[in-house]
């Protein structure tokens, strides 16, 4: 009954939405723990999906599920502290939607059926919209409207892509269930033209959700206007789930011998995302927006790595794990900064090293991690992706890739330096609290530890996830 992994949060979410907020906070953390426990059972293959027509525990799905679960647990602990100190209207609704969000994301991670996957991704949009709209300002409203509208249209196009894949089955004369796992086995018989068309629509559709440029326009707004726990969840967990849809379609095309076609599309979208992020990060005025553009960049890196193939796919999956950990930590730190300075503008902050020293350490270390400095894992993953790109001889792509990394680092460093050390003559509104610091540190620590010591089961899972698209540590 691995389905419990999303049935539990649905149930507890309904409870949290109707019970008083103080009780709801407890429920949030307890369900996060239960979720982690179920996920671990799934990893140990003790719990298996019972509705195997629609769900299956694929290695890549388990990976995303584990990342989501760990990130959610720490974010939920942070949320308890955050909720105590910020005035939140309709807190039970917020807590309920957080749990529904977890449920729908777990459903995405487990779903194998093409349409069930679609339903689950669309459901993530709908349950996370109230999270963005929590503060009920004009800007939050605008961000929510953009998010719901752009993502719904994107996802509608993904549905069209799914229909095209169905058509390729019909034209190929294949009669198997509409599941990725059964389609991969008969991929060679599918009609290639419609498969290609379906892939393009799926990349556009799920790519909108994943934040690939030029479909990323909702992302900076939603990430900057949502309350920090929600931003951390959007960036650290949701984007991976959308990536999973693209990854499954890519492995289907790879099995149908169209791998080079889909790889090229992924590389192009990846590079566009990085260039767009580099352009917009340089003169950014809001620190949460800066992080949002950094998420776009990192999603671009993942898409690029998957597209390159070989050892770069291993790098891409490492990047996915470490990006989730570090970026969630960074967004949680911005929650403390926002509470402390009361503004999202970089100009209104300063001298963080003295005023918010513990947040400063987490924020600065997080920035170093996201820019690819050791001891954080992104260092290794980016290195592997660059190696992979050299091996496959894509020299122009490497130049753009490294140039973007440099520009983004330079632009980000200027902002972080300014926030940390510039003179600031204001008061700190809300002091730092341990409950709001510990999750950021824990996330960074996990990334650091994973860089030095990788558990064998994690390694094996990544290897078996990338072996379906011909990736490997030696390739």
């Amino acid at each position, binding site marked *: 009954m691995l389905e419990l992994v999303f049935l539990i949060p649905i149930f507890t979410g309904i409870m949290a939405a109707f019970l008083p907020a103080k009780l709801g906070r407890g429920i949030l953390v307890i369900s996060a723990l239960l979720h982690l426990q179920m996920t671990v059972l799934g990893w140990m293959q003790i719990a298996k999906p019972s509705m195997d027509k629609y769900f299956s525990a694929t290695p890549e799905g388990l990976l995303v599920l584990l990342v989501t679960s760990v990130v959610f647990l720490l974010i939920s602990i942070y949320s308890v502290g955050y909720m105590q100190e910020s005035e939140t209207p309709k807190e039970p609704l917020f807590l309920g939607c957080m749990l529904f969000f977890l449920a729908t994301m777990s459903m995405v991670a487990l779903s194998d059926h093409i349409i069930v996957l679609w339903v689950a991704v669309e*459901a993530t949009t709908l349950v996370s919209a*109230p999270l963005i709209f929590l503060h009920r300002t004009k800007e939050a409203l605008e961000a929510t409207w*953009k998010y719901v509208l752009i993502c719904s249209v994107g996802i509608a196009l993904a549905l069209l892509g799914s229909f095209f894949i169905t058509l390729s089955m019909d034209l190929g004369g294949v009669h198997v269930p509409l599941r990725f796992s059964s389609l991969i086995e008969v991929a060679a018989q599918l009609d290639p033209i419609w498969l290609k068309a379906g892939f393009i629509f799926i990349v556009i559709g799920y790519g909108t959700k994943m934040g690939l440029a030029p479909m990323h326009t909702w992302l900076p707004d939603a990430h900057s206007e949502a309350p920090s726990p929600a931003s951390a969840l959007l960036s650290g967990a949701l984007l991976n789930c959308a990536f999973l849809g693209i990854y499954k379609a890519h492995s289907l095309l790879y099995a149908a011998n169209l791998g080079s076609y889909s790889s090229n599309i992924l590389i192009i979208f990846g590079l566009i995302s990085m260039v767009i992020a580099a352009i917009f990060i340089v003169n950014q005025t809001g620190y949460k927006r800066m992080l949002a553009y950094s998420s776009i960049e990192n999603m671009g890196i993942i898409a690029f790595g998957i597209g390159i193939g070989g050892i770069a796919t291993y790098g891409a999956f490492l990047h996915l794990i470490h990006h989730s950990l570090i970026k969630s930590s960074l967004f949680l730190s911005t929650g403390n900064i926002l509470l402390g300075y009361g503004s999202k503008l970089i100009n209104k902050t300063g001298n963080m090293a003295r005023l918010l020293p513990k947040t400063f350490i987490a924020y600065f270390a997080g920035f170093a991690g996201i820019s690819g400095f050791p001891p954080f894992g992104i260092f290794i993953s980016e290195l592997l992706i660059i190696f992979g790109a050299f091996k496959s001889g894509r020299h122009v792509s490497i130049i753009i890739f490294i140039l973007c990394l440099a520009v983004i680092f330079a632009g980000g460093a200027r902002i972080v330096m300014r926030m940390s050390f510039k003179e600031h003559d204001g008061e700190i509104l809300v002091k730092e609290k341990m409950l709001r610091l510990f999750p950021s540190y824990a996330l960074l620590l996990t990334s650091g530890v994973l860089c030095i010591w990788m558990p064998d089961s994690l390694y094996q899972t990544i290897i078996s996830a990338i072996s379906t698209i011909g990736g490997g540590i030696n390739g």
Partner: protein
Amino acid sequence: MINLADALLAFVLLSVLLSLSSNRMMGLVNIMTLQGIVVSLVPLFLEHHQDIETSSLLMLQIMLLVKGMLIPGMLYMAIKKVSMRREVEPIIGYHASLFAGLVMIIASAFITDRLHLNLPGNHALLMITAITTLAAGLFLMMARRKAITQVIGYLMMENGIYLIGTALAKETHTMYVVEFGVLLDLLVGIMVMGIVINNISRTFDDVDTSHLAQLKD
């Protein structure tokens, strides 16, 4: 039977053109209601969907209920609640929109012709209608200023995708559990959008999305 299906499809095409040129909010919702009903009836009259089972009949009724009653009801309520001014407020004028609609029909006929599809039952018109509806929905979302017209555009787009789905998929692949999921999502989507519209109107005293341009880089 084939003629009946074609007649229905022609009706959908007409409703698309009407919605592009309509300048009254209530009129637009009425047209969308009709379009929703007709679109959900289309599979009933298609040749390759002839063998109707009990489950598909049930599905059809749910479809009719959602597309014909629940969604329009919610739209009516949204319009009433926010007591908006009645006009649609186009960014692109009515005549230009109508012309764009006609161009879309020709373009989708051209695309359908070029695709050389082996459509089940050879319903070329089905594909043309589907693509036109999809494109016109997208057009409506971009060319109208009010938030509620964007929701209507989204609905129209969904109708188009549903038509493409029925055009392409054989009966064997349509799984009712799944169609039900799609519908439910659509319904909840409209509900969420409705709530957002409501809040837009409360915050800005209007449902004009041009107010929604604060966030940019």
